[in-house]
């Protein structure tokens, strides 16, 4: 099996917001006073991760442990401070649903806008349009501005667009927590189908049951460091045990 994602010694450093200089005056004042140091904060510390092609990879950890940061590094949103991240293939990112949506536009317009953000051609979107609409079950609301949608409805559309193609890698950050259980089942089914077609899926979820049920491999991250990774059952058991203590 070949490697889909290789994360090597990745560290991600942030300068904490309270010291962020956003106006020239503040900047020079700080410079003059010799206080232009930042409070550094490492969201990721020396993380190694290898995801094989065809894996259904889960990431678990508490809030603020660095899961989302890691996903963003993989998706190319962040450039790691040190280390490297090599990705083979196309990525469909589902990091916070509806990132590319404009709430003032209608669902129909947003499907095209978001589709092109993900790099699809309009012709391809024309072909897939009905499939996307059917999957989201929102045909009657197609020409309503998105701001009048509920968050669950937005999530449906976003998921339908991102998975209308067969990406090499699907990154899913907490997406399943929004929809109702029927839609969640539908999403799981769609992800399984993609997986059978050779797509690699990375899933972040707070529901350890879901991760255990769906993933074959899991990594556990805590405070920016990888605690352990390996087969799902093993890591999940260790994670559960740690939670109880």
């Amino acid at each position, binding site marked *: 099996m070949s490697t889909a994602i290789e994360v090597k010694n990745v560290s991600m450093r*942030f300068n904490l917001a309270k010291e962020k200089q956003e106006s020239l005056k503040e900047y020079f004042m700080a410079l003059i006073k010799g206080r232009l140091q930042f409070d550094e904060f490492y969201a990721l510390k020396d993380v190694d991760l290898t995801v094989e092609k065809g894996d259904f990879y889960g990431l678990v950890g508490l809030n603020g442990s660095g899961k989302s940061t890691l996903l*963003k590094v993989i998706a190319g*949103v962040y*450039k790691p401070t040190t280390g490297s991240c090599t990705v083979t293939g196309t990525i469909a990112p589902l*990091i916070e649903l509806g*990132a590319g949506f404009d709430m003032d536009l209608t669902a129909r317009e947003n499907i*095209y*806008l978001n589709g092109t*953000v993900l790099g699809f*051609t309009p012709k391809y979107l024309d072909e897939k349009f009905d499939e996307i609409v059917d999957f989201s079950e929102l045909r009657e609301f197609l020409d309503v501005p998105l701001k009048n949608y509920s968050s669950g409805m937005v999530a449906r559309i976003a998921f339908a667009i991102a998975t209308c193609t067969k990406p090499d890698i699907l990154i899913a950050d907490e997406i399943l927590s929004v929809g109702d259980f029927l839609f969640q089942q539908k999403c799981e089914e769609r992800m399984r189908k993609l997986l059978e077609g050779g797509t690699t899926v990375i899933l972040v979820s707070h529901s350890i049951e879901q991760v255990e049920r769906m993933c074959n491999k899991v990594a556990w991250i805590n405070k920016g460091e990888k605690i352990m990774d390996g087969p799902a059952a093993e890591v999940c058991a260790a994670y559960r045990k740690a939670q109880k203590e």
Partner: protein
Amino acid sequence: MNAKLHKLKLYLQDFWRYRYLIYHLISRDFKLKYRRSVLGVVWSVLNPLLMSLVMYLVFSSVFAGMRGTGIENFAVFLLIGQLLFTLFREATTNAMASVLQSAPLLRKVYIPKYIFPLEKVCFSLVNCVFSLAALVILMIFTGTPFYWTALLAFYPLLTLFVFSLGAGLFLAMATVFFRDVMHMWEVFCTALMYFSAIFYDPDQMSGFVQKLIRFNPLYWYITAFRRTVLDGEVLTWSMVWVCGGCALVSLFVGLWAFRRHQDKFVLHL
């Protein structure tokens, strides 16, 4: 060398892949700009006409002495200056804020970041092209003759587009790190307006002002445009060089500054 060429090719391929995104963003901006307005896109034509009318009235009555006496067709003269300056101001101002505005997107998906300033500058150009209808209407209305040289006006227009793009990229980069730039640019643009020969002809002014104004690239774009449309003459070589040269220098500096810092953007949004 070969590796560099290959890198450039990849870069252009990436760019080509996102052409539809630019198209959709422009159409979004258009829809949102004219949404719920009865006249819609007609405002693109009406707005410069009305603005010029106001300025025309002001400079024909209150400040009549300021514009000198040598300008024959003041209405068209004014509108050309107004149109080109608006293109520059709109393009740079919108491009400047574009990266910040797209923060929600940039934080979640990987997209080449230069798309956003580029889109805003393109949008301003499209708007400007619509506004050219106002120019045609005014020329018919005032009985201004049409010359074939007017076709050459595409040169100052396109070079101004490139010039604005370079400036917009630079400003967008600077704004991410220092929000002050937005406020400074607003003031700067207003000052620049008075030094761009929009409502006066610098040739009729004293030597000092005339010399100073030649350092303003916008003066060259506006004057070159007027020469082809209003005077019916071809561009002079110095116009060709200055317009093209300023555009290239601006684009180069803008791209260089933008590329150098773009990886840090997301940490400052």
